């Protein structure tokens, strides 16, 4: 049996077509990796800075034209705007101070307006000193470049606010009013949580990957908190969306706590991890060509007679051919993984392979940190049923029709039919189709499949039954086949 498989592989690797296919795949991998995603996006140019400078100049010109004596309201208004712009521009773009000022823009503007008002309109030294003091206190940590003390201050203020609101709630009788206050407290507590996280994880306001992560975390967490509490009453779509948000929150949380670096858009690791989305059609093409010709070609050339008068039972000869095709599939997958690893590594650097992939597991209800190679292995395992079924179907057509082109075309059609049948909750009968069940990546990490009627166990059953039926028919047919005269 080993020798028969060896013979089959020997025959396949002596053909030129296999090398041509491998060369095409190599080229596609190299080109695809080199181009990356830059072709779709292009670099984003930030015009904020220039716009601000322009605004500053405009405001200055406007201010010159206004006489403070005659039109004091306008003067105060424009002056306030200009002071605000000057304040923002006094710190470099993207620094934590600039971010903070932008965040509290409305509050600061109000303070500046009051300062200007007390300076130009109603001269009131006492009030002016008070407000000036408030202004300086706010800006003090910024000047000292101490973001931590700034955050601490924020926390103190929020804590005070919460206390005030809690007092208020006791004094209020109106139920509606109570609920509003409760919601406010909730919001403050959430802000407090984020600020505490900022302090404990040492994430300043400065523009950085970690700050982006925190911002994303904040948004997603807020969405998640907004969901009603009773998960059991959700319909399927709500469940899907809830799970998606939950997944992001858990993963972002893990990334923040464990200091997982954020990778650039084009990086070797993600390209490797998604190679089986990119190159699936190529894998399918090669296995269809191999499985579609391995039996039928021997019939067409008459060489099947040579094999069938050798001292082996017919099923062994057919099995050796099937296994040889499976071995080619495995070689192909390994080839793609290795080549993508190397090409990606040379173009974007090998160090990203060390960065783990963060994945929330719904079954275990915890976040897993997975090495990219293990992740690829898991993906391959999840795709394997599909590859094997396409291979078996083509192999069966090849054996029964003895026609290489028909088997290749039909094999391709079977594969492509998965795109024709659009998954939809209203089409429940599609759950009996092989093509809707053979891709197991949708079940990975306990995820909910995109439609409610798909079930993991049921998919396994459909795939197994199809495989056994196809193989049974093929082997029985081959066993009883008369080798016709040419």
């Amino acid at each position, binding site marked *: 049996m080993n020798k028969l498989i060896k013979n089959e592989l020997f025959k396949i690797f002596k053909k030129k077509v296999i090398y041509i296919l491998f060369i095409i795949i190599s080229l596609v991998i190299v080109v695809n990796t080199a181009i990356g995603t830059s072709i779709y996006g292009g670099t984003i140019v930030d015009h904020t800075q220039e716009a601000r400078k322009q605004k500053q100049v405009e405001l200055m010109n406007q201010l010159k034209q206004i006489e403070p004596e005659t039109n004091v309201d306008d003067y105060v208004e424009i002056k306030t705007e200009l002071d605000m712009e000057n304040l923002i521009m006094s710190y470099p773009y993207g620094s934590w101070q600039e971010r903070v000022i932008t965040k509290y823009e409305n509050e600061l503007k109000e303070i500046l307006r009051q300062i200007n008002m007390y300076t130009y309109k109603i001269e009131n030294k006492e009030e002016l000193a008070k407000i000036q003091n408030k202004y300086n206190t706010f800006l003090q940590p910024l000047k000292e470049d101490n973001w931590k003390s700034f955050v601490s201050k924020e926390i103190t203020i929020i804590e005070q606010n919460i206390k005030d609101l809690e007092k208020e709630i006791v004094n209020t009788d109106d139920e509606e009013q109570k609920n509003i206050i409760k919601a406010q407290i909730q919001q403050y507590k959430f802000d407090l949580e984020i600020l505490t996280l900022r302090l404990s994880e040492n994430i300043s306001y400065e523009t950085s990957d970690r700050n982006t992560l925190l911002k994303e975390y904040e948004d997603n967490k807020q969405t998640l908190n907004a969901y009603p509490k009773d998960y059991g009453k959700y319909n399927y779509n709500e469940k899907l969306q809830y799970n998606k948000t939950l997944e992001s929150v858990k993963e972002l949380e893990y990334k923040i706590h464990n200091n997982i670096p954020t990778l650039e858009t084009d990086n070797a690791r993600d390209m490797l991890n998604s190679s089986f989305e990119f190159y699936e059609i190529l894998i399918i093409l090669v296995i269809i060509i191999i499985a579609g010709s391995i039996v039928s070609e021997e019939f067409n050339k008459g060489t099947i007679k040579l094999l069938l*008068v050798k001292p082996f039972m017919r099923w062994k000869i057919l099995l050796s051919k099937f296994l040889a095709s499976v071995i080619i599939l495995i070689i192909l997958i390994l080839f793609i993984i290795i080549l993508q690893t190397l090409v990606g590594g040379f173009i974007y650097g090998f160090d990203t392979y060390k960065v783990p992939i963060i994945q929330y597991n719904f079954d275990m209800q915890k976040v897993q940190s997975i090495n990219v190679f293990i992740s690829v292995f898991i993906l391959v395992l999840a795709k394997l049923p599909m590859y094997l079924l396409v291979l078996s179907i083509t192999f069966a057509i090849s054996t029964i029709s003895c026609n290489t082109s028909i088997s290749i075309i039909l094999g391709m059609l079977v594969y492509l039919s998965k795109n024709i049948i659009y998954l939809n909750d209203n089409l429940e009968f599609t759950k009996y189709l092989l093509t809707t069940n053979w891709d197991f990546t949708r079940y990975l990490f306990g995820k909910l499949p995109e439609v409610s009627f798909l079930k993991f166990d049921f998919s396994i059953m459909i795939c197994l039954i199809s495989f056994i039926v196809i193989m049974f028919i093929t082997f029985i047919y081959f066993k009883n086949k008369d080798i016709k005269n040419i």
Partner: protein
Amino acid sequence: MEKIVLNCRNLCKKIGKKDILKGISLEVRRGEIVGFIGPNGAGKTTTIKLILGLQKMTSGTVEINGYDIKKNFVEAIEKVGAIVESPDLYMYLSGYQNLKIVKECYKNITPNRIDEVVKIVGLSNRIKDKVAKYSLGMRQRLGIAQAILHKPNLLILDEPTNGLDPEGIIEIRNLLKKLAHEENIGILISSHNLSELENVCDKVCIIKNGKIIEETNIENLKKEIVEESYILEVNEAKKVKQILKEKCEIIDDEHIRIRVDKLNLPSITKELENNGILVYTVTKEEITLEEAFLRKIGGNNIE
């Protein structure tokens, strides 16, 4: 008594409603070369495919070395070498690689057996070339090399001389004789050309329309089907016809052919002389085995 290596009993094959084979029985012993002769479409290849298990028989049994092909396929086929229809070769491989593939299918073939076989069929110079570049004759030789690689004791060759030049045919004949007599192999050769096999076969089976119509050795066949005939040169052929009636046929005005025993010839010439016919010459007519064979099977009528 030599051991029987191939024993076919009453092979029948029906495809649809048509009877392709109607009870073929034949035997091949060790060291014996059996010619399996018949016109195209007589069922030669089908018989061979049934023997090798390539097609299922409707009824009948095939035993090779005592093993039934249906029940003990692996044991039965183990010691058989065969070429069916034409040599089955992988064109994109070299001759050597083709032999290597066959070698992998059997246990206990020593590596130098390939070189040995290549030498036997005389392909040593071209064995590393791709089979696609081989001539038809070279492919036949390689096919024989494949068939004898594992030292079979039964060799089944379907039209092995197809596409060979006269010299090649002689070589193959000598090779087969050597294999049969020195290595004690039983050989079954099919052909539609009796004269090619005339000198090698110990026995011939003639098949026509799915039936064996004659199973005998070459000498008997010749004696039986080649009647003696004589050409007489006479002055008036028509008159002779009137005298001898059915015994003769007219070739032209002065020549007639008669089919009689040598012993009866004097009495016929005497009778002609008595009737005033002048007999100038009497010559014996030689007919080839081929002509005799064609007469025997009565032309090529595919049913």
